[in-house]
């Protein structure tokens, strides 16, 4: 399949697209460098810079839509970044329909969350620093979606990872936050390594990392190369987006402040993996095995997320697993390919609204309940928090896909598309997606009912819940409007808008009529929601009760953590210990608590050797014998 990709140079208004990255970056620099001097007004600068970026993004978006359909792209090369051998990397940006919708999502939802955070972080002494990191994140995320080559994408990718790590660990007084930050960091590194190696592979085989040149030349690669390349990109995407097998960090990342969970770990950064695959659609479409693997990852993760989400009692963790599961839907979409790329993007945008809505709602609940997160300790909050309740309800109905809220318009088509796969797998993936819809309805309803309805089960110190100030509820209302209306709006406009990116697609026939799928989806949703309402209407036990195999497994994250520990952590610890054994001193075993978890497991070993010169000399001699031996072995033909 020959595909030519050409991007038009940026001209007119669009030649200012670099400002989108520059504005939040400058603001972050000001906030972080001015220090205490900016404490009084710093947060407003943070909000203003993102809002300004949103307005600017809107202007660019409108001027892009004014262009002819074939020429809807603006590429801008700022400077020659690096040239090694035949590799040439531009510091270049690309504003096209796909980047455009992401820019609007990031800055639009980002502005609302920034505004909310002004209220949420009011009593936190680190508020200015928080906004500094937050702006840094926005700049990096915009660079990620605006780069015109994979190296620029990698820049943004690393940047958002860094900001995410800093923000998860923001409350270092909690040891769990430090551990969560570490976990997020390590799991992301696995993914990042995949992406980085993928980029080098691209360079080795195609000699370029520019999008247009890569996509134009994919057809020249052997299908094995495409498969390996795609798998590496998929590994990167799975790491960033919390997909199987790298999903475990995302729920732990909820240790960060709630606005962070809403912006980074729900609405934007975690969808970067979906962006990567959608952007690389030429690579993924070129190999059907690859597509099937993406679909499998998506389907498996969406079911896992639902099952685990149904067993959790921490309001933010339930939402986090639901994020994992919803991104599973998006992976399913991008894996299906063809017209489903646009569907995945629609779901991504709609999800950005309703998930941010619910996360901020959860933050509002916590704000009124002394940071209580256990849903068994809520109940009946609708009396005290009218606005939070109403807006959360909009998000809840949207995510479970009740027509005509946004989730219905974004999720239903993906389910239908899964049934359109050409072979028997249509039944498998179609039903997985349908089942997921039912389960989503169950666990989200459980969350909603236990929090806002039923009897009050507050702890002693929490007798007087209160509604949050307007600076927090107004963003909630705006996001709730998005949850209600965005789906329909997006579903009717986005597919055409994204045609220049994903190409035209032909209609497929589903194994079941669309109407049947549609009705099945609604029936399962209503069943799931009804079941949850019936079960949890009267509240729930305050302690976990003994449960069956499935529930126990779900409470333990389906044993994935134990698996990770056995397969990765243990060998890693042993490797480190073995190496530390060779290291001589300086491991003084003072694993320091205040120092944000300084020192690792391996630090427990105390001076196994004492730094004697003789032991150093011995190790050098051993090395020398090995090196000389290896050379002589080569010479005698034993090796090589």
């Amino acid at each position, binding site marked *: 399949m020959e595909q030519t990709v050409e991007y038009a140079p940026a001209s007119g208004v669009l030649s200012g697209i670099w400002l989108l990255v520059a504005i939040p970056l400058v603001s972050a620099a000001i906030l972080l460098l001015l220090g205490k001097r900016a404490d009084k007004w710093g947060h407003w600068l943070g909000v203003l810079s993102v809002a300004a970026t949103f307005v600017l993004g809107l202007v660019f978006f409108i001027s892009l839509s004014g262009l002819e359909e074939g020429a809807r792209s603006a590429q801008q090369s700022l400077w020659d*970044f*690096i040239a090694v051998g035949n590799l040439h990397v531009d510091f270049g940006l690309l504003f096209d329909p796909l980047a455009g919708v992401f820019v609007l999502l990031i800055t639009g939802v980002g502005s609302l969350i920034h505004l909310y955070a002004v209220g949420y972080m009011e009593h936190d002494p680190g508020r200015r620093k928080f906004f500094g990191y937050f702006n840094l994140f926005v700049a990096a995320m915009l660079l990620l979606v605006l780069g015109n080559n994979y190296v620029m994408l990698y820049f943004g990718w690393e940047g958002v990872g860094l900001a995410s790590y800093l923000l998860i660990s923001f409350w*270092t007084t909690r040891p769990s936050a430090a551990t969560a930050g570490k976990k997020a960091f390590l799991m992301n590194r696995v993914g990042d390594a995949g992406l980085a190696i993928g980029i080098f592979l691209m360079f080795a085989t195609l000699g370029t990392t520019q999008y247009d040149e890569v996509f134009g030349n994919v057809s020249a690669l052997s299908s094995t190369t495409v498969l390996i390349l795609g798998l590496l990109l998929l590994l990167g995407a799975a790491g960033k987006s919390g997909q199987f097998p790298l999903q475990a960090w995302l729920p732990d990342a909820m240790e960060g402040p709630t606005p962070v969970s809403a912006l980074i770990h729900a609405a934007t950064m975690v969808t970067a993996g979906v962006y990567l695959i959608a952007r690389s659609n030429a690579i993924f479409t070129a190999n059907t095995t690859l597509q099937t693997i993406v679909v499998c990852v998506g389907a498996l993760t969406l079911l896992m997320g639902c099952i685990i989400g149904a067993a959790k009692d921490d309001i933010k963790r339930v939402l986090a697993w639901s994020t994992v599961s919803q991104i599973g839907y998006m992976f399913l979409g991008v894996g299906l390919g063809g017209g489903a790329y646009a569907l995945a993007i629609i779901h991504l945008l709609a999800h950005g609204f309703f998930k941010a809505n619910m996360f901020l709602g959860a933050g509002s609940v916590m704000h009124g309940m002394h940071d209580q997160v256990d849903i068994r300790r809520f109940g009946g909050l609708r009396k005290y928090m009218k606005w939070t309740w109403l807006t959360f309800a909009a998000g809840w109905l949207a995510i479970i896909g009740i027509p005509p809220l946004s989730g219905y318009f974004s999720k239903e088509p993906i389910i239908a598309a899964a049934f359109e796969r050409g072979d028997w797998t249509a039944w498998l993936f179609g039903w997985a997606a349908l089942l997921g819809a039912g389960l989503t309805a169950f666990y989200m309803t459980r969350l909603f009912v236990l929090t806002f309805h039923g009897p009050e089960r507050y702890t002693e110190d929490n007798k007087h819940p209160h509604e949050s100030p307007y600076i927090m509820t107004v963003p909630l209302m705006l996001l709730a409007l998005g949850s209600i209306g965005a789906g329909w709006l997006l579903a009717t406009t986005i597919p055409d808008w994204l045609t220049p990116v994903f190409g035209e697609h032909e209609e497929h026939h589903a194994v079941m009529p669309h109407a049947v799928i549609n009705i099945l989806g609604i029936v399962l949703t209503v069943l799931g929601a009804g079941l949850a309402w019936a079960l949890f209407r009267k509240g729930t036990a305050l302690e976990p009760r003994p449960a069956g195999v499935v529930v126990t497994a779900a409470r333990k994250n389906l044993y994935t953590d134990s698996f990770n520990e056995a397969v990765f952590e243990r060998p890693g610890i042993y490797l480190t210990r073995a190496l530390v054994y060779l290291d001589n001193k300086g491991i003084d075993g003072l694993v320091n608590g205040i120092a944000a978890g*300084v020192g690792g497991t391996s630090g427990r070993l105390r001076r196994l050797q004492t730094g004697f010169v003789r032991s150093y000399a011995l190790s*050098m001699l051993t090395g020398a014998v090995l090196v000389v031996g290896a050379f002589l072995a080569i010479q005698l033909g034993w090796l090589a």
Partner: protein
Amino acid sequence: MGDLQLPSIDYGALLPMLILFGAACVGILVEVFTPRRSRNVVQVTLAFGAIAAAFVAVIVQHNTRKITIGGAVAIDGPTVFLQGALLVLGAVSLMLIAERSIERGGPFVSQAAITVGSQKDLKQAGDQSGATEVYPLTIFALGGMLLFVAANDLLTMFVALEVFSLPLYLLCALARRRRLLSQEAALKYFLLGSYASAFFLFGVALLYGFAGGIKLSDVHEAVANPQRSQVLLYGGLALIAIGLLFKAALAPFHVWTPDVYQGAPTPITALMAACTKVAAFGALLRILYVAFDGVRWDFQPVLGTIAVLTMLVGAVLAITQTDMKRLLAYSSVANAGYLLVGVLALNEEGLSSTMFYLVAYGFSVLAAFGIVTLVRDADGEATHLARWAGLGRKSPLFAAAFTFILLAFAGIPLTSGFTSKFAVFGAAIEGGQTWLVVFGVITSMLLAFPYLRVVVLLWLSEPGESTPTVSIPGFMTSAALVIGVAATFALGVVPAPLIDLTRDAAQFVR
């Protein structure tokens, strides 16, 4: 004996080295003839003047491509570039060495021979200004390094190795604080360095036996048309490589690095981390590219294994360190691994990207150690990691600079750490060494962890009772920090000019 001819000598080409050696000798005379009070000023002026003059002499030579004094020294693109780099990095290290305002009397002890802990020692620790011999010693070391990267025969290379090593052994012993640790480090460095030199020298002997000459071009020809046993060739190559791997701190010959880096006076650690690396890799590049390129298929896998081992050891052990200087030492070990990946590309890109990496890393590491000299308490530098907790709150500016340098070490984009790693990995891919790049990427991901942990420690931890304050740096240290940080940023954002420069220089003469 009538047919003995003096080799032709191009004094112009040797001028940079002659200036440094001459200035170092003058520096020793200054010690004798200048009154104690004005000695420091004179020595500092002399040292900077010599480096500046040598740098001008290098610039003048930038188009020279020749072999002179009977084939002992080669002045070519890599020589000129690396000599220039050594002089610039050396000047920045000298700024750290010359700092006298952070601590009374400077970072060096006044009389190293006084027994530690004696009455006299207590007296000198309090009020006597540091030894000014450090300047001529530093200049000798720099001169030796300049010769080392230019040496075109094995014996000259060995002599240069000793010329720059001996002053470094001495300098390591001269710390004002923690003198026992410093002396222990110096002794270790000396013993192990001599041990490694012996390997090198034995290798030279074997190669002489193999090639019948000690010039690199003799070896090159003998490799192409071997007349004698290949055992001599491979044995010699292995032993010479070991000598150089030791100086470059590659596993398993890196064992001295953490102890010596920790014990040496921090400005000397900075000098070693920046300049010794340049010198060692400069010589390694020349030996492998000029003398042994005929057997590249044979040494690539062995040295590749060493590179992988080095990256792993450096990255994994950096994670467990609790002392800032040891952490930076292991990071320097890991970086030696990345440099070796660039060397093993064995093509022009490999040469140019390795040279770029050396310069980029040199600036960053100088800035890093420069900041280490500033974080102090009553006992001198506070290098335990726990002591750095919450430093961002106490001294945001320095913590920010240090954070930036750490991000560069972690290879975060828009710092020179990213561009230089990208360059060597790109070169290695071109050279068909994809497996090294895979390991390189994985270990650099690992290695980012200890750095970012320190970042979190700096900014997000509460400052404890024991968090020391950052001393106000004098002009010299401030200048070194500004140069280091600015270079790290500039090479991360617009690396192209320097990369072009290394490209133009990437051709050895044989």
